[in-house]
């Protein structure tokens, strides 16, 4: 779809527009650093879109451009049928919600007071009471912010974003630094929002989080998208569904492993190898017989399904990063 066509549609019938966000050619340089270097992106209504990438990949800058907090050097951002800076900023802000990575809310206010304050900025939305329940904050409502644990603070930040019952929710690394239990609580709150039909744009460097919450993800590094698709598609793009990891005692060359049936890639790892294979039932017996044939011994054999982590490693740690 061309941009013109999209504009036409959004003008005619904003509500039936299936896209929540459309970015084209978005670029932002900070002096020499190409933070965002020509990104095209479409986020559909009702989907959870994940932005994956290492620190400094440009995720936060891209998200802040979409949120209207940073002006891009070039390119356009259409959000809920509007463009930033065309007199509709207030209307957009009424309908989106933002949770920033580093925001520290006012220390001396209580949970409830903080939510009240944020609620007052929006013309419509949930009641304070509802938001406290959504964020699972009933027990902490009278606590001051500076006394809260990291997980509760994140849930409060999320609650402050949910006060307006937004159409699009932007989350920038919502669970970074949290323990698994606290992380699960944040995920529950995000899933609740998705169930109510909300659109989510999630930035994270936890692959597990992206895989659990996102319908589609984009992998970003050096200001560009390297891959975009559903988690399953991205995993499939590796050309391997399963991973075999093991340690070796004795002589077993990488060349031998590479020629085994169904093996797509071989990586050296400490005292052993990681094999990316099309299917376990073909490659595993072949591996075991090769081990026997070369009189080697293997230990710590581990097989698992390929994950986004492997996709990310193959991109960020592999050839894509080296090219530059």
């Amino acid at each position, binding site marked *: 779809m061309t941009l013109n066509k999209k504009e036409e549609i959004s003008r005619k019938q904003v509500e039936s527009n299936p896209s929540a966000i459309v970015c084209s050619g978005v670029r932002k340089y900070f002096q020499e650093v190409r933070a965002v270097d020509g990104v095209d992106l479409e986020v559909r209504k009702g989907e959870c879109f994940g932005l994956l990438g290492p620190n400094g990949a440009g995720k936060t800058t891209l998200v802040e451009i979409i949120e209207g*907090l940073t002006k891009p050097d070039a390119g356009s951002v259409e959000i809920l049928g509007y463009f930033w800076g065309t007199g509709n900023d207030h209307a957009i802000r009424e309908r989106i919600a933002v949770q920033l990575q580093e925001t*520290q809310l006012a220390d001396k206010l209580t949970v409830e007071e903080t939510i009240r304050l944020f609620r007052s900025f929006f013309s419509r939305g949930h009641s304070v009471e509802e938001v406290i329940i959504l964020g699972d904050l009933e027990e902490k409502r009278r606590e001051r912010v500076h006394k809260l644990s990291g997980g509760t603070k994140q849930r409060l930040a999320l609650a402050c974003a949910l006060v307006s019952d937004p159409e699009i929710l932007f989350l920038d690394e919502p669970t970074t630094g949290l323990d698994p239990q606290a992380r699960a609580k944040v995920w529950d709150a995000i899933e609740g929002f998705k169930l109510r039909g909300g659109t989510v744009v999630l930035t994270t460097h936890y692959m597990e989080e992206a895989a659990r919450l996102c319908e589609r993800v984009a992998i970003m590094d050096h200001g560009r998208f390297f891959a975009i698709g559903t988690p399953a598609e991205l995993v499939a793009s590796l050309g391997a569904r399963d991973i075999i990891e093991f340690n070796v005692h004795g002589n077993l060359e990488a060349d031998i492993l590479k020629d085994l049936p169904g093996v797509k890639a071989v990586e050296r790892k400490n005292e052993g190898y990681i094999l990316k294979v099309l299917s376990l039932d073909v490659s595993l017996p072949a591996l075991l017989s090769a081990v026997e044939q070369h009189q080697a011994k293997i230990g710590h054999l581990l097989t698992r399904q390929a994950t986004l982590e492997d996709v990310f490693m193959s991109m960020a740690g592999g050839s894509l990063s080296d090219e530059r």
Partner: protein
Amino acid sequence: MKDKVMHPLVELTIARIKESVREPEMLFWVFVFPILLAVALGIAFRESSADTFRIAVEESTGSKGVMKLLLPSEDIEPVMLTSEEAEEQLRKGKIDLIIGIDQIYNVRQEGDALTALVFTYDETRSNSMAARMTGQDAIERGLGRKDIVSIRDNRVETPGSRYIDFLIPGLIGMNLMGSGMWGVGFALVLARTRKLLKRLAATPMRRSHYFLGFMLSRMLFLIPEVAILVVLGRIIFNVRVSGSALDLVIVSILGSMTFAGLGMLVAARSRTIEGASGWMNFIMMPMYILSGCFFSYERFPEFSFPFIRALPLTALNDALRAVINDGRPLYAIWLELSVMSVWLILSVVVSLKIFRWQ
């Protein structure tokens, strides 16, 4: 539901007040510190005109006669000291005047013990000067001087002329400056360093509401801030507000807003607390000294008056003194009110232009 969320401006103001009240240090600097300062300075510089003069008589022949002449005077507290002791005590300010007997002159005159006295005192001290007059008067009167003209003392206390009367408005002005600039400037920079400003910028909150919330909370805070010094001045030092209370409120609000505006300006771009603190001190320090908080700026050279009067704190202090001490109406201080208004408008306009939300 009684817990209905109110207008954002109301909620911002309430949140701001709650944050301030929950900051114990802030309460100390705004409420306790000025009181301590007022009490300490008020006691240290209280006028001693009602007190008696301490006059030392040097021990020598005839000194007893001098003592006798001084004793009847209610205003004099005479002591007999050796000349060394007397000199030391004069130096330390414990006595105001030494009366010595000129021995050489005395020997020549024989018989008559009292013909020549030496008054030793520090002429830069007003108390010494007064003691000299009182001492001479008592001695001459005791020796049978006939008054050429009869003078009756009609002692009145003119309110508004003592040092404490000068000090209380100065402290109110200083306090309004400090709490306005720190209260607004510090909070804004803190919110920026904590990325709270950025978070707020992502909501549909009207930016003007955010700043107005600060201004309104300052306006409410100023009531106890000013009241505590006014009431304290009245109770402890009998400092009267001779002008109208409404005028005092109006002047205080304008002054407070002016410094809130300056605080905003300092915080408009600062990214660090340290940077902002430096600027605050840079702006406030000269005004503490020049603007007549503790002493009148008329002690500075006359050519500097126009500059000093153009400072916002000078305008506020002068306006407060005009209302509190002199009971003047607002139209009589239009110049001071204009100076503050110009500062207020300039700082708000400029800071809104250059304000950094991230």
